[in-house]
């Protein structure tokens, strides 16, 4: 644990990392393979490293033990994860982020929160990875109950649409890691992207939209636009957000 006095990147008052020392460009190229370790398979994910208080020794992770159920894809500075951690204290969740500095920030933030709030935030962690290539390496079939895609990179140019994190092909993989009944949450302030994501989900045979009543009843929906930096910025600027929340349904062969 870094000491607050010696390390100016941490605030003396809150013990939390200061964002300005972890600034990075908003955009990162998902096509370039940066050099971060990738687990060979979901069984190789190091639960002890991510959740040390819940899995003190490596031997404790077996077929019956608890596994990650929520994934925040492109978690940014971790706003959503931090809110979800206390809302669902019994659920393991992980953020996936491509940018190095930002992942470091989230890591430090979680560690600091665990110190300042004993017993809390033990269920949340972050991993630096390219979720467009390696999601099947982290999660078994039907493992996740919720997946989040908050304010993803719009990749405006048509030739870059293939880099969008929600696409017809990638939805196959997201459907694979989500359990039947699992929910995918997407939100953006870019209208065209919102229409794109909705259309992709609508056309995919393994997703169906949530009804208005279901959306009303879901405590997570509100967090999509309020819990993150991006969401707060959009609200400050009086912008509009476009959400598409869908449920994973059984395939035709099941």
């Amino acid at each position, binding site marked *: 644990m870094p000491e607050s006095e010696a390390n100016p990147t941490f605030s003396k008052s809150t013990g939390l990392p200061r964002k300005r020392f972890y600034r990075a460009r908003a955009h990162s*190229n998902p096509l370039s393979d940066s*050099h971060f370790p990738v687990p*060979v398979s979901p069984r190789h994910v190091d639960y002890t490293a991510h959740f040390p208080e819940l899995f003190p020794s490596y031997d404790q992770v077996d077929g019956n033990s608890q596994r990650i159920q929520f994934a925040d894809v492109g978690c940014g500075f971790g706003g959503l994860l931090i809110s979800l951690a206390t809302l669902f204290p019994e659920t393991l969740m992980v953020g996936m982020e491509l940018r190095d500095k930002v992942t470091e920030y989230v890591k430090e933030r979680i560690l600091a929160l665990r110190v300042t709030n004993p017993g809390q935030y033990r269920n949340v962690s972050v991993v630096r990875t390219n979720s467009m290539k390696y999601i099947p390496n982290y999660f078994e*079939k039907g493992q996740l109950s919720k997946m989040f895609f908050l304010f993803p990179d719009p990749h405006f140019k048509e030739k870059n649409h293939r880099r969008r994190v929600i696409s017809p092909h990638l939805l196959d993989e997201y459907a694979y890691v989500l359990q039947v009944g699992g929910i995918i949450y997407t939100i953006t302030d870019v209208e065209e992207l919102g229409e794109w994501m909705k259309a992709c989900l609508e056309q995919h045979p393994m997703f169906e939209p949530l009804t208005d009543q279901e959306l009303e009843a879901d405590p997570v929906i509100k967090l999509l636009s309020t819990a993150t930096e991006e969401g707060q910025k959009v609200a400050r600027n009086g912008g509009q957000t476009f959400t598409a929340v869908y449920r994973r349904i059984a395939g035709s*062969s099941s």
Partner: protein
Amino acid sequence: MEEDSHLEGGENNREIEIAPAIIAVHPTQDSVAVAVGSDLRVFDLRTDCGVSLVDDSVEPFHKDSVRAIRYSANGKLFVSAGDDKLVKIWSTDTWRCISSVSSEKRVSAVSISNDGLYVCFADKFGVVWVVDIHDLDVNGALSNRKAAPLLAHYCSIITRLEFSPDGCFIVSADRDFKIRVSVFPKKPLEGAHEIQSFCLGHTQFVSSLAFICSKDLPQGFLLSGSGDSTVRLWDITSGSLLDTCEVGSQAALSESDGSEESCCAVTDLCAIQDSNLVAVAIQGLQGIILLGCDFSSKTLSVAKVVSITEENFIPTSMGSSSAGELLWFVTGISKLRDADHKSLARLKVVSGLRKKGHPESPDQHKPVVLGDEEIPGSQKLLEKLQGSLSIDQSVFSAAAEAIKTAMCNLLIKKQYPTESREWRKRTRNDRKAKQ
């Protein structure tokens, strides 16, 4: 960016253009096909003479290296595809091209559904496409088809495509160590969205796939070969890894040259039908390794190493018919940079792989490398498929090295030191290549 410069044909990546020779054998051994570079050569074993392919365009019918060839299960169709972004479907009766499908990117793998109704091909950007061919008139005029996207491995070169024996699944392997098993739907043109499993375990690019079945287990197991020098056995329904066989150490044992073990990749697999054997071709080994699969214990073990002693022969591709009597393999290269040779190919056959007759006799595999005269079609076949009868040993060693380098360059992500990465970012060009 690295991906695009490979795909748009970077001028400084000459090594990637070197293509290994590949072979395919008709299911009832009516014919044998070999592709070396852009040259497609077929020998008809029933009439005992070479085949002249017929197409609307001018020879060579493929304008660039052919990377994948395949016969359909019923033997009526033959497919060839490669770096010229064309998938050509041929009738094996007339050897006329009956359909030409355009791909946006260079094609790296091809497969035909067991019922012969669909052709699937994969490109170097990771997309698998499907073409509907059930109303294709085998004797009709050339009809060019359009392909629909079936599934994709994000930004990865797909190295192999295989249908499961029961036709329910399509398996795709990539250079990012992954094998994806997808349900092949009733309406493939709408996409294969349901993933059955991922077979994860390899630590390098996956280079080859094969299914091995037995009478008791008709759906069989999946075998995969990789750049990590292993062959692995999988249950595709669950994606579980049943066994791993370190064939790389076998190659090192047989070869005494003690060269670097950097890229001792498995290059091809061929399951011998009606037996529990699978042949493995691996870089550095002059010959093949025969692995035996035990279906009850779900394990793999080395049954025999078949060495080729008189020649420098490291197989680049293998094939056999449904009868599994003979294993055909080829070594060759599209062109060598420094040599005068346009292309090289050498073909060999191994027989005696299957147990003969008597069930009481001991489990003896006596595989034998046939001499040139003992091969079906002998001199005429060799002349047609190899391009010539004479072989220059020294050139084949250089060829083996060149192919090894080409495969590594293509399938293994280059690790650049930090300084050159920054420089590369500055000079990279995101503009689309001119059509």
